[in-house]
């Protein structure tokens, strides 16, 4: 099955999840997602998702000056974003449990 199709539906959740414990700038968030096992995630998809979540009021941004390179814009979860993460996580867990059960019943073990 094509992972990129699956990713489309859950990228919001994945981005919110990697921002839960620590704020991050764009490329940093991308690295965390890849390190977390989503290595097929597209760069543009992550940046686009960040913009959409920001416009939806789930994220706040602030700029941090860096000594070696250009200034970096950090993204952080706000209250709306945390609530969104909690809701989406619940939906995802229910969905994943249902899928697991379906696959076990039909013997579709990988």
């Amino acid at each position, binding site marked *: 099955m094509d992972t990129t199709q699956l990713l489309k539906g859950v*990228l919001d959740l994945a981005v919110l999840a990697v921002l839960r414990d620590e704020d991050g700038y*764009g490329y940093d968030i991308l690295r965390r997602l890849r390190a977390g096992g989503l290595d097929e995630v597209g760069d*543009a998809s992550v*940046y686009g998702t*960040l913009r*959409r979540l920001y416009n939806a009021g789930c994220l706040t941004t602030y700029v941090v000056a860096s000594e070696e390179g250009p200034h970096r*814009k950090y993204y952080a979860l706000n209250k709306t974003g945390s609530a969104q993460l909690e809701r989406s996580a619940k939906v995802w867990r229910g969905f994943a449990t249902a899928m697991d059960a379906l696959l076990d019943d039909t013997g579709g073990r990988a």
Partner: protein
Amino acid sequence: MKKTLDAEVAVYYAQVAEALRDLPAAQRADLLEDLMPHLREVAAEGAELDLRLGAPTAYADELRAAAGLPPAAAPTSEVAQHLRREVRELADHAGRAVAGLLGFGSVERLLGAIRPAWWLARGYVAGMIVTAAVFGWHDGIVPRAELINGATPGGAIFVGCVVVLAAMVGSVRIGRIATGWPLERRLALWVLDVVLLGVALAALHNADVAARLSHELYGK
């Protein structure tokens, strides 16, 4: 090395920006804001941008899709663009010719000059509609009233004329201040203008038919 990296980044950035050209400026700036630092980071890792990120147009498509924006509109064909330009030029030409014939340098000047006349006419039509609604409909250029209870026809004509004149004054005043109105109010006014123009044409047609009929009946 540094130089070529920067050049590669600049070219890639420009191509993504170009592919997002159809978006409103604010949305476009929004999407492009993180792009430059991102490209620098990728380039600094030693990856070739096209290999790592794919073609700039594909990157732009993915970016806009993930941001929840509609896909880029298909660029209009060159033939359609050419045709549109031709038609516009032709219309410009015709407009200038008509304006010139009437002694005006441009269509804008001509329209500016006849606007107050239109305001007066609009007010007249509106006033006639109001008096017709109150006193009953008559074909004619002056409000008439024969059926009004108690009042003499002469008095009603006077009242009607006052109403029509007041409507004309009001219409000109509205015309003067409407340029400062918000768009939706101006749109509403334009719709009203079109309706009034339609009513005026219908009334003219009516009067024309009535005049011909009376000529046929009594004229011989």
